[in-house]
């Protein structure tokens, strides 16, 4: 819970409420590979921020630094600071497990828990909280709410007790989003959430992302520039671990400042 406390931010010019997460001189490594290089940027609150760039540019690693998932990989290392509501999530005493309930994450491939029903999948994040006995009423509330927020309710309403592996890939991915929404996170991290989905499922997820920013901040990593243009308010362009440019999405795709950004979005490399 410590990570959710709001404490005054030391070196900031923008008001707290405007910034969901702030990276300060963030560096990340896999062993000797320097995957994220000295990134400093703000992710605005209640906006969708897209991170684009060629394969291996460090965009997924950057995303995984924001909920401390990067450090779960052997030989991974992080330096610098990430402020969440003003507090450094890498400070001593911050519990990454508590942090991850406030900063949710959805991955490239749908990962429903195969041994659980649809219902239990939705409630899984709440049940995992140590020392908390989830009441039946609270569970019903979440199971009734999260799938609606994930635009999945109509498709699973009558089959909540069925296995989560029985629904389609697109439904599974929205189930994973519902599962992440169940803990009411402040920030939702999406790591190429539609890479494994068909066009119709992709459209549903994109519409959902657009809706979600009313209640939370969304950061989405995508390979697909059209997707970034469709869903995001702001776009970050990364190249070889460095942040090249961050600007409102419309500006990035029409009048980018950096020539490298322009080369990338016009398809000259990547």
């Amino acid at each position: 819970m410590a990570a959710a406390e709001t404490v005054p931010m030391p070196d900031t010019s923008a008001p707290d409420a405007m910034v969901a997460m702030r990276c300060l001189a963030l560096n990340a490594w896999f062993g000797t590979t320097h995957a994220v290089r000295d990134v400093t940027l703000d992710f605005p609150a209640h906006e969708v921020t897209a991170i684009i760039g060629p394969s291996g540019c460090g965009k997924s690693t950057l995303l995984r630094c924001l909920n401390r998932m990067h450090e779960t990989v052997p030989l991974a290392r992080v330096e610098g600071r990430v402020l969440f509501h003003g507090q450094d999530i890498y400070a001593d005493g911050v519990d990454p497990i508590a942090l991850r309930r406030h900063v949710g994450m959805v991955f490239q491939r749908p990962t429903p828990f195969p041994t659980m029903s649809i219902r239990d999948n939705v409630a899984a994040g709440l049940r995992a909280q140590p020392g908390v006995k989830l009441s039946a009423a609270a569970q019903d509330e979440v199971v009734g709410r999260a799938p609606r927020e994930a635009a999945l309710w109509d498709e699973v309403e009558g089959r909540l007790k069925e296995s989560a592996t029985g629904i389609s890939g697109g439904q599974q991915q929205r189930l994973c989003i519902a599962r992440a929404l169940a803990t009411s996170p402040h920030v939702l991290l999406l790591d190429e959430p539609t890479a494994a989905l068909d066009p119709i499922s992709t459209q549903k997820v994109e519409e959902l992302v657009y809706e979600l920013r009313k209640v939370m901040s969304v950061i989405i990593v995508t390979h697909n520039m059209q997707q970034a243009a469709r869903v995001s308010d702001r776009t970050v362009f990364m190249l070889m671990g460095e942040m090249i440019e961050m600007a409102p999405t419309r500006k990035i795709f029409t009048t980018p400042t950096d020539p490298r950004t322009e080369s990338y979005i016009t398809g000259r490399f990547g």
Partner: protein
Amino acid sequence: MTSAASDHGAFSSPRARGLLRRRVVSVIMIVLTCVAAALAVVPLVVILAYLFKQGASALSFGFFTHMPKPVGEVGGGMANAILGTLILIGLAAAFGLPIGIGAGLYLAEHRGTRLANLVRFLADVLNGLPSIVMGIFAWQFLVKPFGHFSALAGGAALGAMMIPLVSRTTEEMVRTVPQALREAALALGYPRWRTSLQIVLRTALGGIVTGVLVAVARVAGETAPLLFTAFGNSFWSTNLRQPIAALPLQIFTYAISPYDDWHAQAWAGALVLIGLVLVISVTARFVTRARHGGGHG
């Protein structure tokens, strides 16, 4: 192919001759491997048929419910040995499963560490250990210090034999659980230990149950580790601290006796033992199939 070859006129051409030779060799090899495959199952079929012929006559309902009768009296059964074997299997599972599954989980989740490699190697050595050696070891530490044979010592010896089998299957099954599932649990705020137990182990459970049943079937028929641990018992006993009867031991005793009706009982006992192992194996198969079926459903 035949017509194509003869169209070119060509049993005499070097290419077609090579083709003919290859086809002849192919047919011979196919026949040989078929024969080998058939021979591989012959022992099982012969054993089952012979067991059935010899054992079925002595097998009756009373065989399961009656105690052994003294020499010279007709009838009697192996109720005590059947119960004893079930108790020993239960004890072996109680000793072997927690250690085996725990070790397997460790090996899978911390693969590549020096301790994991060492443990895996030692488990393989333990797997290859002759079962009589396991019996002597259990006698040294669990029989001799207490001054008497016991069901506990027999269960421990069998349990130790189960450990490498169970840990290996657990490791393999846990490894098949996608890394993405672990990450999903961690990202959801699952602590690492809960991820291992509630997500990873549960996902792998079907396969682990199969492995456990195979291990149980394997130790159920073991005789050597019981010779000087459980020792055998001609009487009805459920006391874990006393010697206990077991089917393999009873079969051994009866088979080397000079009495014809004991020989018949030994055959019947063997039939029951193999039936028990068969039931466990078939259950294992069933569990495996249910698991694979569930994955798609």
